[in-house]
């Protein structure tokens, strides 16, 4: 039974790991392989700040809220382990500032969610809704290599290759191709949500600060990552000077001490935006060939936040496929 995971961002790698952990002992002939043309540090996940925080509105997707919670609990459980540092996982507290919005769906998932006290409000004049909570940070730049190592230790093979189509001779394809999923199968609901970030060195900033009216945010990690714009439909992966100016000015207004920070890097990426995550099974037929495909893409700006819940859901879908198929079968030609 050959399972090919396409995509080596946070979704692809975590799905591969979840599958291998769950079924490796149970299905003797199970082979999991990862195919990607880009891997860390060049994936979309690598640009993400890595703050666990879903969007303000759950867009009516209760399923996604549950996947978010599963991910948070999973990560929280890993906090106490010595692996946490290697994973790039740590607790972080901070502020969310809005013009007008009700309490978010995730307020009982994060730790210590509360409104700001009057004294704290002095820090951020001009916002009517202000929250403080403790959440988690999971840095793509550490987590992806950690996942890769775990996978390699388990014997999962990696292939640097751009996959052109689904029907290439494996039993199951797990489609974690993110923003470029449309190249494998057209999907008008999938759009790029361009983001640009500036990475600066400002180790005195220990909190994250996110504002949601002008869409700028300061996320905390070894580097503060201010930034944030969300340009729908823009496929440009180049850094834009005007965006840089906007981001920088907004963030320095929010946190004047950033003016002293040293800019280390600039980065642009394309969030795989979709009205809802596509996480479902599809049987793809082409002439003689048939492949089972599990789609797991379209996680927008909350991939890290939701990744483990989705990985487990994808693994469950694989479970149903495994139950349906006879275990032995003729070996398929390689991709």
């Amino acid at each position, binding site marked *: 039974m050959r399972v090919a995971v396409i995509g080596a961002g946070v979704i692809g790698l975590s799905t591969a790991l979840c599958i291998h952990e769950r079924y490796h002992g149970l299905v003797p002939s199970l082979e999991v392989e990862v195919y990607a043309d880009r891997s860390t540090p060049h994936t979309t996940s690598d640009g993400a700040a890595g703050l666990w925080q879903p969007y303000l509105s759950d867009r009516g997707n209760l399923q996604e809220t549950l996947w978010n919670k599963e991910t948070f609990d999973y990560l929280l459980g890993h906090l106490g382990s010595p692996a946490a*540092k290697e994973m790039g996982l740590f607790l972080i507290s901070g502020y969310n500032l809005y013009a007008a919005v009700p309490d978010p769906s995730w307020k009982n998932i994060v730790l210590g969610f509360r409104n700001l006290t009057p004294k704290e409000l002095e820090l951020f004049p001009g916002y009517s809704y202000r929250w403080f909570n403790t959440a988690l940070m999971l840095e793509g730049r550490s987590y992806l290599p950690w996942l890769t190592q775990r996978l390699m230790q388990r014997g999962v093979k990696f292939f640097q290759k751009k996959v052109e189509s689904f029907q290439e001779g494996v039993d199951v394809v797990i489609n974690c191709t993110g923003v470029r999923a449309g190249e494998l199968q057209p999907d008008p609901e999938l759009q790029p949500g361009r983001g640009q970030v500036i990475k600066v060195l400002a180790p005195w900033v220990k909190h994250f600060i996110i504002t949601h009216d002008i869409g700028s945010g300061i996320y905390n990690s070894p580097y503060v990552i201010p930034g944030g714009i969300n340009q729908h439909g823009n496929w440009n992966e180049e850094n834009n000077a005007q965006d840089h100016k906007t981001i920088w000015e907004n963030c320095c207004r929010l946190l004047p001490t950033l003016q*002293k920070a040293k800019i280390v890097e600039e980065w642009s990426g394309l969030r795989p935006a979709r009205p809802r995550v596509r996480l479902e099974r599809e049987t793809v037929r082409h002439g003689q060939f048939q492949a089972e495909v599990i789609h797991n893409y379209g996680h927008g700006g909350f991939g890290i936040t939701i990744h483990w819940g989705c990985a487990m859901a994808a693994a469950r879908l694989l479970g149903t496929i495994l139950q349906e198929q006879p275990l032995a079968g003729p070996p398929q030609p390689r991709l």
Partner: protein
Amino acid sequence: MQVVVGAGVIGLSTALCIVETCPSCSVTVLSEQFSPNTTSDVAAGMLIPHTYPGACNPQWFKETFTYLFAISNSAEASEAGIHLVFKNTPKEELPFWSDVVLGFRPMSEAELQKFPQHQFGQAFTTLKCDCPPYLLWLEKRLKATGVQMYTRKVADLWELHSEYNIVVNCTGIGAHQLVGDKKLFPVRGQVLKVNAPWVKNFIRDGDGITYIYPGIHRITIGGTREKENWNLSPDPGTTKDIFDRCCSLEPSLQGAQDIKVKVGLRPSRQCVRLQREVLSQGGVKLLVVHNYGHGAGGFSVHRGTAKEAARLVRECIAALQGTSSRAKL
């Protein structure tokens, strides 16, 4: 002509307060040690006062916090080494400063799961004066106003009487020898300064002996409280003990790099000695303002005591002017 003896957080902040409130004053700072070799440099610089047994002024903490809070918002915060950190502390009662710090509240069940040995916790956001940056910032501001600073060990206050008419004694533990204050005693503290930038929240155990305080570049973890121990050399057994205790609060510290060990002697006293004194010898008078004995709470109250000391200096000046005008009669 006034001189401040001592260049730790108390000496420098007192000098700055004097300069700010007394434009006609001419201030010099003399100290045997400057940053990074003062006791203040060893400290984490967290603004969490302890509850002193004596009648010490709770107003001092509030003044200090308010002052630093105002600076922390301005562009100077990075230079001054002041920033907000969020705390998890398992402990019991409601402290007097719970309405001074930000967002004080009990920890939730979910947050306490991280600390299975502890039943109760308090969370809040407070400020931290990172050293050396904070002391260097104070020095810079002093120099900008024309204050001179010299490295000099003062063995006796009377050495100063020919050049200065008011001496401000901010010598910390040095006051034990300098003015023979037997009520002043060291409480030795050993700490580790480690590289663990993923730790963003501070954690302090209720007894206050085990703590993890993230700074700008390094985390200060500790500690010890050894009364009457004058030994400034690091003890390897203690280092291991501190590391073990802190790792049980925060397991990820096992991955910490580049561990440096430091020792400081907290200048402890039942209460801060903050008062005027007139020394006389052979018909000559020397006016002294004492500002020492802050124990473990130096950073927490420094601005409050500096302001009070500056006020006492102004009283001294008024007294001197009164005397000289009487002499002219």
